[in-house]
């Protein structure tokens, strides 16, 4: 596994998809926060964090993700996670991230989740 977590972003309308690759620790969390805040400043309403290529998250990374989540909530935005390993999925649920952010199996599911179709 690579030493430094890489974060790439893709914008689809007012939704920003952030893909991580590597360990979400202090450095990885900061990378995510930097990109997330840039996207929010750039007008993103919702963030989708795709963690398909991440297999480890530590508590520092989680605390940074919570900060990102709080920032998104302050702006009345949405945050969704997808592509979590079963271990990370359970970690997020226990640590409270799933309380305010939805967790979806796939990126497509997450995109549908943050872009609800009118009834």
């Amino acid at each position: 596994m690579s030493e430094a977590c890489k974060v790439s972003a893709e914008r689809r309308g007012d939704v920003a998809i952030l893909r991580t690759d590597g360990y979400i620790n202090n450095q990885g969390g900061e990378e995510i926060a930097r990109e997330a805040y840039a996207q929010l400043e750039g007008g993103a309403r919702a963030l989708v964090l795709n963690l398909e290529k991440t297999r480890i998250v530590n508590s520092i990374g989680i605390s940074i993700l919570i900060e990102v989540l709080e920032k998104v909530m302050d702006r009345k935005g949405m945050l969704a996670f997808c592509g979590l390993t079963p271990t990370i999925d359970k970690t997020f649920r226990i640590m409270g991230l799933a309380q305010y952010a939805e967790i979806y199996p796939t990126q497509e599911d997450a995109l549908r989740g943050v872009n609800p179709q009118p009834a």
Partner: protein
Amino acid sequence: MTGPAPASATARFDELWSRIGAALHTDAPLSSRVGEAALTATGAREAVLYLKDRDAWVRTGESGPVGPAPGELPEPLPTGVYHREGDLWLPLTAEGELHGLLRLCGVPEGASDGAALLGFLLGSVVATHRLSKQVRDAEFELKARLLELESLYDLGLSLGGQLDLSALADEVLFRSISLTDAGKGTLVLLEESGAVLLERSVGGEVVSARDAASWSLPEGGVINNEAAAVPTGGLMLSRCEKCLAVGIAVPGRRLGILAVADKESRDGRVLDFTATDARLLSLFANQAAGAIETARLHREAIEKERIERELELAAAIQRQILPRDLPAVPGVEIAARNRPTRQVGGDYFDVFPLSRGRLAFLVADVSGKGVPAALLVSTVHAAVHLQIDEAKTIAELVGRVDRHLQKYAATRKFLTCFFGLVEPDTGTLRYVSAGHNPALLRRGSGAVEPLGATGVPLGMFPNASWREETTVMQPGDLLCVYSDGITEALDAADEEFGLERLSRLLDEGPPARICDSVFDAVSAFAGDTSQYDDQTLLLLKRA
């Protein structure tokens, strides 16, 4: 205080609350909110907030058009509103504790009235903020402990059914790094011999696999927070500042090492690993040890099953190849038998009745065991049956079989072989011994003559050639051709059956009876000692 003169003290108090509340109720950081609230309430030009960080007072933020030049904190710290060089120092207190200091510059004349109350209000804000953060941190810590417990439980469940060592290693290493907040980690698993079975690292190598093999556990089984490059228990913990390492072991055997390094903090410092971390890592290592041992036993069982299947296949090949019945040839009596060992070697014998009453025969011994040896025997069998009618002499036949093997044999193995052709009418025996054990020719007088090798084993060297020898078997002479499984059969004292014992068993009796005697004698000699070579014997007597 500034602003339009309020109608009453109550109204003034309400307005103060209102202004402070508005300034405080924003998304800005605490220091900005406190500073802005103070500026709003007092009309001061600039505000600087000092908060206590661990044991030091730290300038945390400033408000106003331009931050004032740094100034020394009053000594001793003021317990009440304090004026110095035109600045107003406001202690922020709550519940009798000093939570912060606010330095206000450019405070309008008379605006410091009620500053003590402002200090109390802002002190309460700072204290509440801190308390709230402490509660959140405690809640986070509690969830983290719950996560540890859940992880231990999950790891136990997941490892219980995990037989893939690679996946198992990842699972243990990932959880170890994650739950100790380590920046990196390494897991090394060792073979029983001490050789490295598997190595995994995340974020960089903490310990090299080579070192892990020679590492001995220190007292207590844990290395904690040793500085980089300090050998501990023979282990050089390189490329890290602080580490935590535990052995993975079952009673009486070391299975590997699990090491994590450089515990992270939010502010980028490398922290010491805690006793909780050490306990957690030890628990992971214990769980891993049980699972690794289970996986190893499972792997061994599969390997054993594979070998059993291979042996069955090899035995089936051998059974198909060995002649079921020996031909009746006038002028000679023949007896032959093969006793395969459990490991199925590569012995092969065959007899070929030829024109003019002649009889060709061979005993071969292929190097190696199992399916590869059985396949080579199969190739030799096919080659001999293809070439025996083409070759004019035994030497030519052996050469043809050798070239066939050099060209088509799937494995680079070789075989020794004794190939003979007897003419019962005249007793002429022509033979080639390709590196085979000396055949024994027992004369009617009882003398035993060895018939030694006339060339190298087959399949060993390209373009090799073999010398064909000729001798005459008189009526009553007995030829004994055997594989080394007979003469090298071992007894409990590791002594070989030997040529001498075999020679003594060759008498003037019928070959079938002698054959039985030899096998009985070898069995009696070996007793319960396991034998690792096939035993083959071919006896040919001129009537």
